[in-house]
């Protein structure tokens, strides 16, 4: 029966390609959006996860960086540092601004860090130096590429000119980028007594969860979170912001996939009605015929699914070249979600043809 299903499916090449292609495109819609959001999550938390910090200390109530403002005092920072398990506490200043390069502006998180402190700066500099001096900036290579900038070029940040001395990699996301200036320059441009966050390095063997809890117990004005949790909170922001869109797109993909598969399967069954009648007359039972329809549905969905995965992977290679900062990341959750949708499509699409076959009168074979 599997052989018959495959032959039925592939007999008309155009219909086969349209059917499988339609399914692939519908699943692609779901997979791509999921992969896009997953990619955005990865990009968005790149600074946090590359920072090498064990704990992030923020103002009480602030659990992340994206679209957040945090201010802690130097005293708060010293209090956090005054913990036996804490090796260092590195301050950063943080705001959202633009990097102006000639005619265009690029939205960017501006991070002011102290080059003399162990943490806070870029995790890795691909080109140039991580040691900043006055009026120097490190930007991401994706921004440099898109704006035609190179080391030694000047950009304007917060109304002040900076010379590019280093390029990071992987710190540009779909929304913006991350640029680094020195803490001193940041303080000069935005004077104040506070810093935004403190990045803590804890001693080897110490548990960041316990250390963070101890800091929080001692100082109610701050919220110390282990980096893993801080990153998770940052990811949650993206998810909370995108859940509605994701649901709508998933539903759209599911409905399109269902429509394509159901229509292909139904017309194929209708076209083969006489042949199914012959099989029934010869002695095939309904379950034999259902298995042909089910196998056809499974085959076209499986092929569509594999094609969709392949296309997402291909897009993942092409898109970052065309649109810097936009990455696709296939996740197990995303694939599982689409697989479940595929199963739902398969079962739903096979119902109408199965009903049609159950009602098929085998005696029709004698009425030519």
């Amino acid at each position, binding site marked *: *029966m599997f*052989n*018959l299903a495959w*032959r*039925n499916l592939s*007999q008309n090449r155009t219909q086969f390609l349209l059917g499988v292609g339609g399914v692939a495109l519908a699943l692609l819609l779901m997979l791509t959006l999921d992969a896009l959001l997953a990619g955005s999550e990865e990009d968005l938390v790149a600074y946090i996860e590359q920072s090498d910090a064990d704990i992030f200390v923020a103002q009480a109530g602030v659990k992340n960086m994206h679209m957040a403002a945090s201010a802690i005092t130097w005293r708060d920072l010293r209090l956090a540092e005054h913990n036996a398990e804490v090796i260092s506490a590195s301050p950063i200043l943080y705001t959202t601004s633009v990097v102006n390069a000639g005619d265009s502006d690029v939205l960017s998180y501006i991070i002011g860090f102290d080059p003399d402190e162990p943490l806070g700066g870029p995790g890795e500099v691909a080109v140039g130096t991580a040691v900043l001096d006055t009026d120097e900036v490190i930007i991401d290579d994706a921004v440099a590429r898109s704006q035609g900038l190179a080391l030694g070029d000047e950009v304007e940040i917060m109304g002040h000119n900076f010379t590019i001395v280093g390029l990071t990699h992987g710190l540009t996301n779909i929304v913006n980028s991350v640029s680094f200036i020195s803490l001193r320059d940041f303080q000069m441009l935005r004077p104040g007594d506070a810093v935004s966050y403190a990045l803590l390095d804890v001693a080897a063997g110490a548990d960041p969860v316990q250390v963070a809890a101890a800091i929080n117990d001692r100082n109610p004005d701050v919220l110390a979170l282990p980096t893993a949790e801080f990153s998770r909170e940052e990811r949650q922001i993206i998810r909370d912001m995108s859940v509605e869109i994701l649901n709508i797109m998933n539903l759209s993909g599911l409905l399109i996939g269902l429509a394509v598969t159901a229509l292909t399967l139904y017309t194929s069954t209708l076209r083969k009605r*006489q*042949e199914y009648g*012959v*099989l*029934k*007359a*010869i*002695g*095939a*039972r309904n379950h*034999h015929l259902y298995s042909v329809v089910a196998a056809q549905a499974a085959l076209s969905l499986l092929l569509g699914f594999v094609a969709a995965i392949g296309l997402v992977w291909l897009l993942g290679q092409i898109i970052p070249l065309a649109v810097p900062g936009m990455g696709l990341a296939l996740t197990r959750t995303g694939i599982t979600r689409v697989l479940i949708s595929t199963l739902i499509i398969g079962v739903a699409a096979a119902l109408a043809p199965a009903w049609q076959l159950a009602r098929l009168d*085998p*005696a029709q*074979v*004698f*009425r*030519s």
Partner: protein
Amino acid sequence: MDAIMQVEHVTRRFGSGRTEVVAVDDVSLSAAPGEVLLIMGPSGSGKTTLLSMLGGLLQPSSGRIRIGDDELTQLDENRLPDVRLHHIGFIFQDFNLLSALSCLDNVALVGQLNGLSRKDSRQRARDLLEQLGLGHRLTFLPEKLSGGEKQRVAIARALVNQPTIILADEPTANLDSHHGHETMRLLRRVAREEQRSVIIVSHDQRIKDIADRILWLEDGAFKNVVEMAADPVCGMSVDKDSAPAQVMWQGRTFYFCAHGCRDEFLADPETFMPDQAN
């Protein structure tokens, strides 16, 4: 000889009250092993309805149909597919091969439905197709075959489960004269050599030549029963009632189209005994 199929007083009505139509009216017949039974009749005479009932595709309103030990009219609907699969081979007017499958797969599929393994069913299908002269067409799709070849594949498909009865609906209708004769010879061979009952519904007068009996169906009932026999000398089909000559030999009656054939037979009967002939 015991009949393979026994049909007793079968009637089939459609509709009720003033709109009731009696498609088949109190029909009885039996089919013996090795017998070719031809049912003829004008359009609308009830041939298709009768054939559908004989094939277990339609239940009669009254009467009984028995195949071997199974009484179709008493069987649950769920058991009818098994009876069709095991006991009946179907041959259709339009061949009705599965267009997406090769000749081999068309035949093998029916074996697989009957529980044979893929390997065994393909082997049996291959053997049958080779016997029917289609060994060089095994991988061809039906669209690549001539009408005669398609009908031979259909015959192979009907035979693959070694049924006791072959039901053929207008098997020569879409064939030219040559392929029509070829199909007729094949059906006769199937009946004679493998002791199957072949029941043919047809308008084709040529089939009379291979039929042992001809039943004329009109307005749902048999009007005239003509029993045919093959002249053992020339092979021509002759009406038993009006045969010009007949001879008893070793307890059997032989019918001849002419006295010349009878004389030739009597000169050396052993030569023309059916067991010796093809």
